[in-house]
């Protein structure tokens, strides 16, 4: 069995093909480099213009055709509506045209599952951090329950928005990480609410600090404060759930300082520490294809007329049938 997965929740369009032995046959991603924040309609337009060729390219790369594909899966949510609709329309069309079964999957759950597949983590607490998501989840009684999350903006969004204000380009993460190495600490607001956190006050303060401090100092302090907050709530969630493994998922997970801090916390607690391989950390089609296989082989079926997109689909609404 081979599944073709389509990922489009934000600015990236991804196509992946995965087989039932969980081998990733191909995984390609395309996006228009951004100079500003994501413009939902423009992102969707990019996806609509490129999706046909990208699917073709994915198949050709491994010398497959639709005769070899047994299942179509797509990112049904959560995400930006216009992007999600491109993935959904393409997936429905392919399913109908080639008479293939269709499953819509949850993007956040896909990040967790690809991490579990490609690391030694079996039952981790997952710290999922990206441009649009900051969420700490663990599997309890049939679902990935949310133990901590941002109450406003995501960690990636915090860094990107700050980087744009400081004219550091887009995406800002790698530049902020580099500049931070030369900086010293200045005080910025630290906001943790139980196992949740809030980044919007920190963003405002960091932007304002640019008037009085060097960009290096603000980058350093922004990273130290925002990551400390995240590690703190992750540690609370570990203690609370009793899980013994920690897994990083999502694009912000490439940040070395963040990895180092999470690793240090996990070490001190005697917990296992795992990072999703770098090529699968960001949004990609392979994770959608893999979750499609998990869902389908455990009985999930979806009619095209039920494949409407779910922009705000919560992680804990998904029934995890495969665990």
């Amino acid at each position, binding site marked *: 069995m081979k599944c073709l997965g389509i990922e489009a929740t934000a600015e990236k369009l991804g196509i992946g093909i995965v087989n039932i032995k969980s081998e990733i046959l191909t995984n390609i991603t395309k996006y228009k480099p951004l100079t500003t924040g994501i413009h939902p309609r423009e992102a969707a337009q990019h996806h609509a213009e490129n999706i046909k060729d990208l699917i073709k390219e994915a198949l050709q790369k491994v010398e497959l055709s639709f005769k070899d594909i047994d299942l179509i899966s797509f990112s049904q949510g*959560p995400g930006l509506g216009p992007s999600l609709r491109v993935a959904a329309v393409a997936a429905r069309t392919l399913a109908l045209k080639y008479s293939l079964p269709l499953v819509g999957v949850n993007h956040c759950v896909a990040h967790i599952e690809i991490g579990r597949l490609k690391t030694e983590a079996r039952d981790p607490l997952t710290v999922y951090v990206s441009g*649009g*998501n*900051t969420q700490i989840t663990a599997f*309890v*009684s049939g*679902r990935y*329950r*949310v*133990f901590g*999350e*941002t*109450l*406003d903006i*995501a960690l990636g969004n915090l860094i990107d928005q700050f980087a744009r204000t400081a004219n550091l380009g887009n995406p800002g993460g790698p530049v902020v990480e580099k500049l931070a190495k030369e900086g010293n*600490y200045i005080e910025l607001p*630290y906001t*943790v*609410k*139980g*196992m*949740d956190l809030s980044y919007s006050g920190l963003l405002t303060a960091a932007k304002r600090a640019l008037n009085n401090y060097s960009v290096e100092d603000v980058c350093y302090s922004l990273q*130290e*404060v925002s990551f*400390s907050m995240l*590690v*703190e709530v992750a*540690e*609370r969630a*570990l*203690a*609370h759930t009793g899980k013994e493994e920690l897994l990083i998922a999502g694009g912000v997970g490439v940040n070395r300082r963040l990895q*180092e*801090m*999470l690793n*240090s*916390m996990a070490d*001190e607690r005697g917990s296992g520490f795992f990072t999703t391989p770098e090529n699968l950390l960001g949004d990609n089609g392979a994770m959608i294809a893999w979750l499609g296989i998990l869902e389908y082989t455990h009985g999930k079926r979806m009619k095209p007329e039920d494949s409407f997109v779910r922009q*705000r*689909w*919560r*992680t*804990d*609404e998904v029934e995890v049938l495969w665990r």
Partner: protein
Amino acid sequence: MKLIARGAEAVIMLDEGEIIKKRIKKNYRIPLIDLKLRKKRTKREARLLSIARQHGIPTPFVRDVIPEEFTIRISYIEGETLRDIVEKLKNIKEIFHEVGNLAGKMHSGNVIHGDLTTSNMILSKGRIYLIDFGLGEINESIEAKGTDILVFKKSVRSTHFEHEEEIFDAFFRGYLESFPSGSKVIERLKLMERRGRYFSER
């Protein structure tokens, strides 16, 4: 002195019938952040435990505070955390009605707990004690009170999902009883949930 619990941020020791809570150093964060947070929270917790008590919330008595050692000494409350016993409670509605009542009293005195979860509620001889005020503050804003309740709601959703409805129901009844203008907080709470990245309209 006997170690009785190791939380995410502190060790709890029993010494001559009293509790010593010491916030421990975290190597993942830089010392400038680490020292400041631990000191601030130690002082805050001692202060808020006393203030909450003045508003009629059962809390441990504060015997001593040593900010330089990130330590407080408080009375020992013998009992179990609600977190551990919710699933076997016979009078779950009554208990969470009382929890709501306490939250209402606290908020009418502008005390924000900051980590209102069932791990921080101890049932002892029929009374519910609130502990762990380290993330708390005095704040009269509706937003701060809404956030406090949001933290409670989310922790119930993740940890006591089987009793979600009855817990919320009883909690909000108790909350409004002791804090009638809490209806404004509940209204704000709905807005805040929608502001979050994910929510489902149910």
